[in-house]
């Protein structure tokens, strides 16, 4: 790789790594797994960096690798993992301290969703992607994104309603 490509890659990592890692963490619920996914995706991007930077969409490229790999892994381990278990992650802000008591309960509801639906919510509400960009990130149609989103929100509302009184206020 040429020196200017390498420097450009380093600048990309410095600018985008945290955002991508946060997104990966929200989909996987596991910081170590999120870091592994990010590094693997960045290695793939690094190998093809000259062509990726020319297309001017490196973040979308890396995000797509991360999200699809995270969904695959989660599906493989549907019955194994407890995603988004904030008690496992030292340093997570305490919702009570934050003064927003509903968030822990909402997170626990999100973790009950299938990985694909969870990814749609993260891409739409954390990464702030449009439906079209979400579809590109997931490698599916806009219609699939819409239906996955609708199912996720319906399920989330059901789960929120089932929460004990007061926990979601």
């Amino acid at each position, binding site marked *: 790789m040429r020196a200017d490509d390498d420097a450009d890659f380093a600048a990309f990592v410095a600018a985008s790594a945290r955002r991508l890692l946060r997104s990966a*963490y929200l989909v996987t619920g596991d910081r170590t797994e999120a870091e592994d996914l*990010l590094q693997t995706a960045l290695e793939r991007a690094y190998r093809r960096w000259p062509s990726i930077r020319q297309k001017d969409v490196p973040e979308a490229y890396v995000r797509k690798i991360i999200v699809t790999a995270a969904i695959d892994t989660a599906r493989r381990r*549907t019955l194994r993992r407890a995603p988004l278990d904030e008690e496992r992650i030292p340093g997570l802000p305490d919702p009570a301290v934050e003064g*927003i008591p509903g968030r822990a309960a*909402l997170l626990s509801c999100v973790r009950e969703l299938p990985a694909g639906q969870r990814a749609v919510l993260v891409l739409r509400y954390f990464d702030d992607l449009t439906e079209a960009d979400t579809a590109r990130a997931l490698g599916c149609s806009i219609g699939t994104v819409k239906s996955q989103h609708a199912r996720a929100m319906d399920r*989330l509302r059901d789960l929120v309603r089932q929460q004990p009184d007061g926990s979601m206020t």
Partner: protein
Amino acid sequence: MSGNIAQELTETFASASEFVQPPPGLTERVRSGVRRRRRRALAATAIATVVLLGAAAAGYAAAGSHRAAARLQAPTARSRVIGTVSYQVTQLAVSGRYLYVAAGQNSWVSAYDVVTGKLIATVTVPGEPAALAVGPGGLVWVGYSPSGSAGPGGVWLLSPDLRQHSELTGLSADSIVPVSKTIALVPSRHGLLRVRLPLPGQPGQGSQHAEPGTSLGPGATTAPGAWSGMLGNRVTVQVSTGAGDNSRLVVAGQPGLTYGDSARTHINGATSTGSAVWVSTFAQINGESSLQGPLVRLNAALTPTTPPAVLTSPVLSRSEDVWSDGRTLWVATGVLTHSLVCLAAGSRTGPVVTLPVSGQVVALAAAGSTVYVNALEPPGSTAPSKIVSYPVPAACQ
């Protein structure tokens, strides 16, 4: 909270991930990783084999001399790459000359000729394949999950060469137990469904009926990849209890007979050897989960009857998943140098033998004297992976 969930999600996601920071030196780690992979790719196969032998031997030494410690099975020229796939394999099944490969994300099921390694056919099912099973007559049952684009889930029954199929939609088939050429049992929320399909390519319509007396108990649901199989003459099902990764085994029609779903006994994988079910378990303590744990044998009442040698094995105590063809037990473990081990599954379990597999074993199928394995190297990798056949060690048969 009842007002705007979308707004709450935005704020919750932001605060819940606020503490996440990339590891220091990430760029250099990426560069090093790429260099390491290039070096690996340049290494000759012979050198790689020697390294693997050395690593496995070192692992064997570290595992100690316990009577059930794994023996090393040397890599052999008889192992063979059946195919290299660029997608994520979710399940394998084998019957006769065909090896079937399910790719969840692509909704593909492929058939390979196990003798020539040739790809025979690939079919696209309407949803992600959640269940793959070969039934009587070598017919292939595929259950797929409901999805937004595919609509409701369903079941396909395919000819052995995958060229013809019959189908039934309107049910979610997360696992399938074929009982005849045209009938299979499918676990559902309310018990087992008896699914009947025309032979592939034949006219007619499929049907589904609730099988009387097969309740799985209140609140039971299944999930893609969940296991079900015969235990004696009853169907045993891995059901989810809707609380994250909690699941338990239930004997259909006898919901009082259960195993698992306590803090110390979660279920990773399960398999039946006919008269017993073997389960790879893990514990979750204070929210921490190792995702690996002791291998347990259950009798027809789902009572543990694990041989002491298995319970105390340093390798089998870190099981991650388990498969069986009825004669041999295959166990994926979290011990790096013993990624895949086997043992005879009869009433007297034999020695534990390590196969020359590295990486994370994600799918396996065995028939006769051959086992087919798909492993991700390194674990979790999204790089193309190989499906490799290995001869079954004599000690495991």
